[in-house]
């Protein structure tokens, strides 16, 4: 009965606490609870977050500080837990000057509490296991190295040497120990009373990229593309009701390891941007970066992945093709799949008509029942408007190329001939066109003879566009003369 009474009372207190906190913000109440010396808290008015694409964000936190006039310490709760303290700046027009800024990592832990009590008195409460009776004693903490040595009265003891229950009661929390890493700024106020101030800082842990959904219609060779901005927050803090701006592009942060870019299982890197666009479009820009402001304020919760739509285009013509790139002297005992490639433009004319921030484009296609099925994805880089993109979704099951070095002949010192054969096979019931690329030509390689006219895409690569009949195959041969 006693139990229930106390619980009800507990909720009542909790409620009053919260209602009290409603009058002033909750974090102000926290500040009082964790820091007994009660420095001035700051009260958040507005929050704006600018997120760059490479795990970096600029937070601008508009707060009201209650100045006392003269030197005082102001604490900021609810800042990013990963704040880069060296980038903090506090600005309040003509109202204050900064004396010093501290970011305290000294966390309040039981061990720290004991460590800081060395040389101070604590209360030891022993509970008798037999009777449950409590006895209290004052003790002086002498040392905490691998065990706590206490001086009780005129004798020395080790805490819980006997393994019997003993509680240690401290009467205060040391000033500089806090539950969370805390930013505090010591300022010199020019006047007293509340003043608006802006705290800005950089923090990792917030990032964004784009995710695209493309539905390819085989019958009409058109795609519908939706673009989503994907925001992720692992900074350890929630940003409530924030004005959010995304910047496509990442400022140079020197020295840091910014490139997380491993792209495993790319058998060969292949260029996706075939031609960079030259159209400017109507998106907002800042310098060379495109800006994507979110239309509405949003709450970016800690550990949240948030997506907001920014692009929705229908019926863009797309070309479906195949591509096979052979390395220099590449020869295989089994046919290898050609890559399935979809190409389209981001032009305002017969294209997506927008800049595309870097991200992943996922392709879908309808199955025989009409349900969309996933058919592969490809990464795209920041892409200007008017660009031609050629994206590979994976390997074609039925379209394969077997390349063979038929003969290598030494024509003389530094003079070789390589006879290549490429068998392009198609197990589909319709003809296909495959772009067969031979890489590794290093400029001065010449093609002496070939069964079909090639075009030299670059000094490095030759391309044959091979049309393969339904359920058939085509043999392509070429002889290269090289210095190697």
């Amino acid at each position, binding site marked *: 009965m006693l139990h229930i009474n106390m*619980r009800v009372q*507990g*909720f009542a207190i*909790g*409620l009053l606490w919260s209602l009290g906190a409603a009058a002033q913000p*909750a974090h102000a*109440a*926290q500040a009082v609870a*964790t820091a007994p010396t009660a420095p001035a808290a700051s009260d958040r008015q507005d929050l704006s977050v600018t997120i760059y694409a490479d795990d970096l964000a600029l937070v601008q936190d508009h707060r009201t500080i209650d100045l006392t006039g003269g030197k005082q310490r102001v604490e900021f709760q*609810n800042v990013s*837990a*990963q704040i880069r303290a060296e980038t903090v700046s506090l600005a309040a027009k003509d109202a204050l000057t900064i004396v010093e800024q501290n970011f305290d*990592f000294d966390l*309040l*832990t*039981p*061990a720290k*509490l*004991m460590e800081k009590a060395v040389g101070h008195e604590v209360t030891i409460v022993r*509970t008798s*296991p037999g009777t*449950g009776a409590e006895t209290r004693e004052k003790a002086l903490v002498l040392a905490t190295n*691998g065990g706590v040595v206490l001086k009780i009265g005129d004798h020395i003891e080790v805490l*819980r*040497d006997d393994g019997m229950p003993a*509680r240690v*009661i*401290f*009467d205060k929390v040391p000033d500089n120990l*806090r*539950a969370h890493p805390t930013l505090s700024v010591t300022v010199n106020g020019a006047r007293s009373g509340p003043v608006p101030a802006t705290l800005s800082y950089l923090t990792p842990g917030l990032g964004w990229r784009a995710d695209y959904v493309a539905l390819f219609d*085989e019958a009409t060779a058109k795609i519908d593309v939706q673009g*989503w901005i994907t925001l*992720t927050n*692992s900074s*350890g803090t*929630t940003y409530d009701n924030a004005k959010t701006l995304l910047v496509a592009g990442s400022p140079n942060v020197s020295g840091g390891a910014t490139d997380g870019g*491993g792209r495993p299982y790319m058998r060969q890197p292949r260029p996706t941007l075939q031609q960079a666009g030259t159209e400017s479009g109507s998106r907002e820009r800042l310098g060379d970066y495109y800006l994507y402001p979110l239309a509405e304020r949003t*709450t970016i919760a800690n550990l*949240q*992945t*948030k*997506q907001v739509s920014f692009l929705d285009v229908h019926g863009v013509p797309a070309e479906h093709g195949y591509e096979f790139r052979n390395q220099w002297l590449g020869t295989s*005992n089994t046919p290898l799949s050609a890559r399935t490639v979809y190409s389209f433009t981001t032009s305002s004319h017969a294209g997506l008509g927008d800049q595309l921030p870097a991200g992943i484009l*996922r392709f879908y296609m309808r199955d025989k029942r009409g349900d*969309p099925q*996933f*058919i*592969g*994805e490809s990464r795209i880089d920041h892409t200007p408007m008017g660009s031609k993109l050629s994206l590979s979704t*994976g*390997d*074609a*099951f039925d379209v394969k190329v077997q390349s063979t070095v*038929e*003969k290598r002949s*030494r024509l003389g*010192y530094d003079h*070789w001939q390589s006879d290549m054969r490429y068998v392009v096979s198609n*197990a589909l019931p319709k003809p296909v066109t495959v772009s067969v690329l031979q890489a590794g030509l290093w400029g001065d390689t010449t093609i002496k003879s070939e069964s079909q006219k090639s075009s030299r895409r670059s000094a490095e690569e030759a391309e044959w566009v091979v049309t393969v009949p339904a359920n058939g195959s085509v043999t392509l041969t070429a002889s290269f003369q090289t210095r190697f």
Partner: protein
Amino acid sequence: MRRLLYACLPLVAALAPLSAAAGDGNAPAKTVRAGAVTDLAVTVYRSPYGVSESLDLDQLGGFALVTETRTVSIPAGESRIRFEGVADGIQPASAIITGLPTGVLEKNHDAQVLSPSALVKATVGRSVWLVRTDRKTGKETDIQGTLVSDSEGVVFQSAAGEIEALRCSGLPEAFHFDPATDAPATPTLSALVRSPTPATATIRLSYLALGFDWMANYVATISPDGSSIDLGAWVTLGNSNSVSFPDAHAQVVAGRLNRESEQVEPVDPGTEILAQCWPRGSTSDSPDEPHIVGARPYGFDSVLVTASRKAMAPMPMADMALQEVMVTGARAQQEQLGDLKLYRVPWRTSVTSRQIKQVRMLDQQAIPVKLIYHADLSADDELESTPLRKILRTRNDRAHHLGLPLPAGRVATFYEREGVPLLVNEAPLRDVAVDEEFEIDVGEAPDVRINAETADRAVDPKKLKRLRLSSRVVVRSSEVDEVHVIQVTNARSASAFVELSVLVPDGATIVEADHVPGTRNGHPTFSLTVPAEGTALIQFRTQEIEDRPEDP
């Protein structure tokens, strides 16, 4: 009185810093739960990193596209539709929601989940009850106070101002919490929508999820005379998610899809609540080496994120005993999906949590095969009694009783002995398109072996050339002639068809041979039949021009 107070609790929760109030803040979004799943489709894709030996539920490298149909009633104004029971391996960025009368303002995936540590974290700075139980009498004492810190242990300040650490006293202690967090039990996917009028809609949610994989498992039974095989295959698919997909349209897709990695969405790493106190040495301890613990930066350890999937999918009884294999009758139907192959299970089936399921894919009888004893060797190889590999070669066409796509997987080959199948070998198989020649590896042949050696190596002094490239560099060009001998021995009671592919050095050619070599995949290849309990000898001569800089 008590009920009234409980009724006020949502107000308390709304003030908690964790509560996710979105939108303009004036009218908080109402949370509505999407209705139960009325239709479900699961398409399983193979791991893009190759086919593994078998499906191990603890490390499935593939993924699936899950499509759910649900009904939802949304009120006028802003509302947050919460989807419950999605796969725990969900890749939130891939979620697509269609069928809503209005557009989606935001899609959110919240990884912050309710856990003991989340509860403690949310309670820091708030009121809490510390309950002590007397071990002797069982009597509970409740102390009201505030949770001051949760770093590496919990520090508590009683209402009377006494500061203590939790669980350092040796007394049984527990906390009773106020509901300070509305974190859900599992990561949650939600969509924020705004509708001018209340509406009921049938919506489809589709997303990609990890923790799935499939492979084709072939069984090839070799006929007694070795001239043909019967080939049967299963689609084996596995789901290691803790979520089941009952009564679903199930499909698998064959072919390799591009997948981009480094898709790191935040996950709640969760932490143990350490009841760590001050050093707990006693006078009976042997002295410890003093050590200095390095400073640890605060914040989420990004390394933790990579191990996320396992952490996200807590499988309390992830025990081999729970792996279940289901075998179903009838056959999966194949259709073309772009450049991939889709196999549809023609009836609704359940893709259950932690289950391996098998569906029949094909059964083809009497496929003519050619048994070949094969080796790939270099002309310079010195081999001493090396067994050849046995392969079964055939073509995937109608003439060979095939002519249907064979997705990658593993082939187990059996001989039948007195009606009892005997496993001979197990080997991987690549994706084989229609009309392609392919081979099944049947393992080593201990009875058919080769010896190889270089019998002679000569340089013709008359054909030596000196090339002056510059005043300093002179290259000596010489013609090298080598004679190689390969001996094949057959200890079987039947003749063996042997195929030896010889890799010659760059620019070298076979100028003379006592068996005429053909060409296979660009390499000179000797094909011959070695009689039962017999021996065959192959001699060939290669010629090559060697360029060597001369010492000045």
